[in-house]
């Protein structure tokens, strides 16, 4: 099992979600987040005062998948979330030791 964490543009959420469902991923968690990588921010003006907004709204998507689905999931996210412009986001992948379904104590990949 591996955890895939993807930070993406909020406008790409629906496309990414559909792409993941398409390759057979059933569960995911979505967080509304703020952050920036190399993109930095933008400036806003309110009555003559300039504000730099460097933490921009992002969506962080988390899903834990069986090993055989990891590459498919990454490809799905890449194709759905990419615009080619700076600020498209990042994907992080890490190992997961255990998964437990709370309802019936099921363990391992079948609990996903």
């Amino acid at each position, binding site marked *: 099992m591996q955890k895939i964490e993807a930070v993406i543009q909020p406008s790409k959420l629906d496309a990414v979600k559909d792409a993941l469902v398409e390759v057979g991923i059933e569960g995911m968690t979505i967080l509304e987040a703020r952050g920036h990588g190399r993109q930095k921010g933008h400036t806003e003006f309110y*009555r*003559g*005062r300039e504000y730099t907004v460097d933490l921009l709204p992002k969506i962080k998507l988390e899903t834990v998948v069986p090993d055989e689905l990891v590459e498919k999931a990454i490809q799905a996210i890449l194709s759905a979330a990419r615009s080619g412009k700076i600020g498209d986001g990042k994907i992080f992948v890490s190992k997961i030791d255990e998964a437990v379904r709370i309802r019936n104590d099921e363990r391992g990949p079948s609990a996903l």
Partner: protein
Amino acid sequence: MSAMAQTPSSDQVAKLQAQIAAAQSGADNSWMLISSALVLMMTGPGLALFYGGLVRKKNVLGTMMQSFAMMAIVTVLWAFLTYSLTFDSGTSFIGGLHHIFLKGVGLNPDPDYSATIPLQTYMIYQLMFAIITPALITGAFAERMKFSAMALFLTLWSIFVYSPMAHMVWGKGGLLNASLGGRFPTLDFAGGTVVHVTSGVSALVCALYLGKRLGYPREATPPHSVVLSFIGACLLWVGWFGFNAGSALNSGTLATSAFVNTHFGAAAAALGWMAAEWIRNGKPSALGGISGAVAGLVAITPAAGFVKPMSALVIGLAAGIFCYFMVFKVKNRFGYDDSLDAFGVHGAGGTLGAILTGFFASSAINPIFKDANGNTLPSGAVDGNWHQVLNQLVGVAIAWVISIIGTLVLLRFVDLVVGLRVPREHEVEGLDLTQHGEEGYDFAS
């Protein structure tokens, strides 16, 4: 038999006249009661939303409560004392005490003020002006003043600044009263000097006396919701029809003039501010548009019942550009923290509007000045009466002086008695929690 018209008896004529008077009174009274409600709507929710959206979210309720508190405090004060201090005949500078506890304020008209509506309608209509005026000041000391100090200061301000100024301009025998024989007849249709210059100038004094918010201007203090401000500003625009067109005190043609001018002034000023922003910053902002509209409404207030519609467009446009300049350039140049621009919009726009009223007042719209034989005299400079510009300057100067001195003395007093500012840690935590024990937005529940 021939169908010859019978000459009506004097009884019938008298009866007919009474019916006509009752019909006119009914029409006037209904418009004035609607106007009263519209002007109250300007404070709550109009101004409360406008100001509430401009502060950070930890201060939204504290800011709204300052406007709302005026709706309660000034009302009780008005019933007990300040109506009398404002509208009893008294001296040239302040009214007397004959009407305290609303003694003698009944359902019959007082012809000196308004011949066709109950005096109580006049009283409640004027109360709504007395409510919004101190509420406007709260924009200057937003996000840092104690609720107790704010309540005490604005109560005293209503007594010692608002009542004298309103008496001088609108009260019987007032020094500046244009229609009841004042020494320097100042044209102020709906409160350019009484409401906007007094509140705006007092706001500047408050901003200077209290000092800047913690971290200003280094730390960002952007509006937490321009959406709230947007709704508030649009409610102000609508409410302003009651403020200005209602100041005709009847439902006749003068109300129409004031209504049209009010709308034209707001529209031209919104365009003026947005155009200035577009040229200088590259983008017209929503906050700029609504700020411009309010500036135009402020500037047209003294002129609303005296000028022609094309003059209203000129006054509005001038106000939009001038207030933009005051807020963008002058405030940053001098570095005072007039947090929500109460001075930049109301003080500056009110002063400009009061002076321009002297230029554009036309006797064709409102023949306010008459000679001993009842012939109409010229109103403003457009009629050839350049002297009126001087009278307007006298009115403005008195409003500035009484506001500066009154506000300084009262702030000093309140500072000694209860202290003006919240402690540093309360300012960081926000007024909502520290002053009221609440939060405007609780996303956990």
